[in-house]
């Protein structure tokens, strides 16, 4: 079954929590494990935080989060119309950050890669950035067969 949702919100740090919870809530229809939910929340939080801090450099703007489900695959897209990036590859290097003064760890993209199956980043200076996060949900059957599944839900 296909299903989609899309939300737009102000680039304010208070909305980081909203965005990851909204994504997680929409995802529940795929019957994910708690671990899968946590993975998606972390990845969405990283992408939205990047949009706010780097995309809009903490000034005003809108961030959109869209989520589409197709069978057991979740595709989450986080978009901003901020400053964009010259060199995406460089930005994705672990520990690379343009804002060390803000104590950014430089691990945002590394976290997204660690917790999702696939990540795509498109960016253009002066236009904005689009991050696509893909994850297949529903590894639970296999886990249950191993007898180590999460029985809490």
């Amino acid at each position, binding site marked *: 079954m296909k299903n989609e949702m899309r939300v737009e919100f102000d680039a304010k740090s208070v909305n980081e929590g909203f965005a990851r919870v909204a994504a997680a809530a929409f995802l529940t229809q795929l019957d994910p494990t708690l671990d899968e939910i946590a993975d998606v929340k972390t990845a969405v939080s990283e992408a939205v*935080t990047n949009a706010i801090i780097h995309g809009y450099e903490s000034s005003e703007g809108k961030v959109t989060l869209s989520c589409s489900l197709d069978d057991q695959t979740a595709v989450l897209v986080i978009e901003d119309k901020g400053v964009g990036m010259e060199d995406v590859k460089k930005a994705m290097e672990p520990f690379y950050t343009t804002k060390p003064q803000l104590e950014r760890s430089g691990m945002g993209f590394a976290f997204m890669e660690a917790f999702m199956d696939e990540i795509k980043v498109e960016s253009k200076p002066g236009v904005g950035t689009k991050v696509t996060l893909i994850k297949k949900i529903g590894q639970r059957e296999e886990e249950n067969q191993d007898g180590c599944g999460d029985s809490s839900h």
Partner: protein
Amino acid sequence: MDCKYQLKDGCMRISMPKEVDHHCAEQLRKEADLLIGAYHIRKLVFDFSETEFMDSSGIGVLIGRCKNMGYSGGEVSAEHLNERIKKIFIVSGLHKMIQVTSEQTGGKLV
């Protein structure tokens, strides 16, 4: 954000908030640094009992405090991590910088 600080004999215990993200990072950083400086803290303990979520912004705050404490020869540890927070520590390599104590074993993580 609900973050509590307990001070005793040069040791400060920080009860970390439920969600440690960019939104709470700035306040946490400012308050912690102010107290560390004002009370000559030598030992810093991050207590994650209440924490359910942390992302790389939280990692930044912890590494920053670690560095500050390191300059003054102080020590930093973290305790009461749930499975998710443990995973975040391991993925980021934070467990190599901060001593993690677990109640079950009383020893180090991994």
